[in-house]
């Protein structure tokens, strides 16, 4: 098990570094690490969340993280804690902290259940992002995923793809999807 995991982690590690590397000339991960002092009580310094209401963000695509921080800052997306934090961030701080968290390596292990067909094209059967601006879902708290899907469904959160998909799900389907992805175990390896 350990033996099999190591090459996988290394591949992801390289992938993560390359991902950070492609846009890295504009971003400063060391500066981002300092900004992460504002995030770590809830999200951890490595992006593994420390409280249930906070999502895991280690190894998330930088484009997704930056887009969410900008949305919280502008008021397009609202959350009682994140709106307060994002209000104080500059564009450079957003890019840097997004690069810090995006640069960590994350690996998922699926243990049970059947992947929900409506989600896998973008979020993977293992809950790993398959595209830019798409979050990982693996290991997030079921009520976090449930809350976000209901927010898309009810128009409290908007996205060109997600609003439509969530709008066609009923509350039972939403909970099944949330339980499936929440049950996947993730491991985040901090990359300094």
């Amino acid at each position, binding site marked *: 098990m350990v033996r099999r995991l190591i090459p996988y982690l290394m591949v992801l590690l390289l992938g993560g570094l390359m991902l950070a590397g492609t846009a890295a000339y504009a971003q400063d991960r060391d500066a981002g690490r300092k900004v992460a002092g*504002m995030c770590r*009580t*809830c999200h951890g310094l490595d992006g593994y969340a*420390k*409280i*249930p*209401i906070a999502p895991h963000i280690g190894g998330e695509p930088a484009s997704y993280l930056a887009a969410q921080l900008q949305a919280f800052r502008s008021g397009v997306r609202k*959350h*009682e*804690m994140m*709106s*307060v*934090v994002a*209000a104080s961030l500059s564009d450079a701080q957003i890019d840097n902290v997004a690069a810090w968290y995006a640069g960590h390596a994350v690996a998922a292990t699926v243990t049970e259940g059947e992947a929900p067909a409506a989600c896998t094209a973008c979020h993977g059967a293992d809950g790993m992002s398959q595209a830019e601006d798409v979050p990982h879902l693996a290991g997030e708290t079921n*009520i*976090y995923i*449930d*809350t976000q899907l*209901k927010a898309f469904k*009810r128009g409290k959160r908007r996205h060109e793809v997600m609003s439509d998909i969530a709008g066609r799900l009923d509350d039972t389907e939403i*909970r099944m999807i949330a339980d499936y992805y929440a049950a996947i175990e993730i491991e985040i390896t901090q990359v300094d």
Partner: protein
Amino acid sequence: MKDFAPSLQFSIPNGPCFSADGFLYIAEQNRVLLFPAAEFFYESPDEAAFNLVAQGDLIPPEEESFNHTARVCDIGPDGMIYISLGQPFNVAPPDKLALYDKVGIGGIIRMNTDGTGREVYTYGVRNSVGHDFHPETGELWWTDNQVDGMGDDTPPGEINRQVAAGQHFGHPWYGGGSVRTADYKGEEVPVEVVMPIVETVAHAADLGMTFYTGSMFPEQYKNAIFSAQHGSWNRTEPIGARVMVTMIDEEGNASIEPFAEGWLDENGEYLGRPVDVKQLRDGSLLVSDDLAVSSYRIWYEG
């Protein structure tokens, strides 16, 4: 640790409380379940569970949130169940206030233990995650978490003392203590507001609390409040992560001080984050911690 009632699907089952006759109640995001024999069948898929408040009837489903939804409950000396309903915003917006007052969101509700007689007992709460009844007067005392984004040292956190049904404690016009919120600054406050009996240090996140009725601790702790500070999340210098004790003198004046600390290290890193304090039957204290995922027992040897 055992998984309680594994066949049931829970949503944020933060608030358990027992009645004097041993019935367990669990307050969730939008349901309250009743377990008449919880301790006998807790591992069984056949655990007997009944709706005290059915799914979707605690609050309107479109008002459900994840944040500020750690509900707590307790059975009062009147035999009614009291349930806290945090409001989901940093500062509740004007267009929600009428609905919230009607439902009891941003408040504490109570009802009979057969589900009848529901009413809003407390108004003007931001997010209360701890309450207990004074062992002698029967008054409801409760903690409240106050507004973020106004600065490291303001507004204060709160412990409140409620002496009558329907009292209003100031949110959203007040952000904590007598500090007005920026959102409602300059507006006339349309309700009579009860100020907190204890102002706690800003952003420390005062959560669970319990009155001490045991005989293990020295006499001075009789009827004192033990309360948990979870610790700040975005204060420049973290503060909290400790158990506080509040002494109440004969005139009813209260003063608060740290009782147990050491969960916040010299680098500002949390080693643990206390959530709740309960008294065990022998008079020692049980403290829960959701970062270390542990419980601690604090006892006294005279």
